[in-house]
């Protein structure tokens, strides 16, 4: 695939000029042949959005990072099983979603048994959260106001059911189409529409209560 992309670039094209569908095909072909450059392109193209999706599901940056890394490794190992029936990115996000689901389940089980283990420090995770927050640059007052507002919105989102939250995250924050969200979550399109409507209605009510 990189060879194909190189040929295009040599001909005066750059990656943005390649048709997205064509680019995806080339990327998948490169991944299937195990080309390192294709894998690097794939990781760098998907990592930010994948991390955002995983973070919204797991609510922990370290865990989200681990899951995203694992998802990339799984793609490297299992891309040959991708038949091209769906779009590659919906296939990938479905894989990522399953990994997030597994991670959450494992965490629940670990929490049950955590009473037998010594208390674990969460400082490293907190430090990482601070780094993430500091990336958004505000003045002291704006920072406080933005932080307060973000906190309120976050708490409103947390009051949605798990499915509503996921659908809203995929649709609103990640910009997936309803059809794609349905494939990723393994549910019907109609169900996604209902969940999205319910999420919006609940948010409307909750934001009103919070006077935002």
């Amino acid at each position, binding site marked *: 695939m990189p060879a194909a992309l190189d040929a295009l670039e040599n001909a005066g094209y750059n990656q943005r000029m390649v048709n997205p569908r064509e680019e995806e095909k080339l990327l998948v072909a490169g991944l299937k042949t195990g080309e390192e450059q294709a894998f*690097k392109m794939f*990781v*760098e193209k998907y*990592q*930010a959005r994948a*991390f*955002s999706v995983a*973070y*919204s599901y797991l609510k922990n*940056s370290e865990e*989200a*990072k681990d899951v*995203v*890394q694992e998802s*990339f*490794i799984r793609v*490297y190992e299992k891309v040959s099983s991708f038949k091209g029936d769906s779009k590659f990115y919906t296939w990938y996000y479905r894989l990522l979603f399953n990994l997030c689901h597994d991670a959450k389940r494992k965490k629940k089980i670990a929490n049950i048994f955590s009473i037998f283990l010594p208390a674990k420090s969460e400082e490293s995770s907190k430090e990482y*959260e601070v*780094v*993430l927050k500091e*990336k*958004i640059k505000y003045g002291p007052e704006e920072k406080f106001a*933005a932080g307060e*507002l*973000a906190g309120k*919105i*976050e708490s*409103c*989102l947390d009051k949605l059911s798990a499915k509503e939250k996921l659908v809203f995250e995929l*649709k*609103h*924050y990640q910009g997936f*189409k*309803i059809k794609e969200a349905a494939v990723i979550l393994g549910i019907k399109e109609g169900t996604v*529409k209902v969940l*999205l*409507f319910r999420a*919006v209605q609940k*948010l*409307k009510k909750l*934001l009103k209560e919070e006077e*935002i």
Partner: protein
Amino acid sequence: MKNCKKIIQKIPEYIYGELPAEEKALVFTHLKNCSSCAKELKTTSAVLKKVSQLKRPALPSSLYPAVLGKLEQRKAAAGKFWNLPFAAGFCLLILLAVFSNNHNTYSIRNINSGNTANEEKKSTKSKLVAEGLNEEIDLLSELDYKILDELFPEQAKALIK
């Protein structure tokens, strides 16, 4: 009113531009003529705009080096026959084989030693009976015979003689 309920349900899809052209036109016409649905559209749009202010966390650096490192580790582990799952399974099999073998030997030994003890006990008992020490025998329990044989073999022999 019934129509309004249906239109309100379509509002999020309308805002996200997910409605097919025909439905979109229908909703648009309805919103033009219905003030309450138009108000609903306005409030929903405002809510979605507010919610958009929430920044999603961003990655501080590329994950590629870490992913590559993990991948190399997995490849290296997969190339060795003693990789963890294989090694664990192999060890388990060996342990099972050893324990089952020990258990069998132990059982055979127990049976053998049990038989020998029984024979000795019987012989002591029969000798005592032969000597006419029935009264003493009656007082002795099974355990007493064993203890007598094991702790005081000479006295037991003497008693028999």
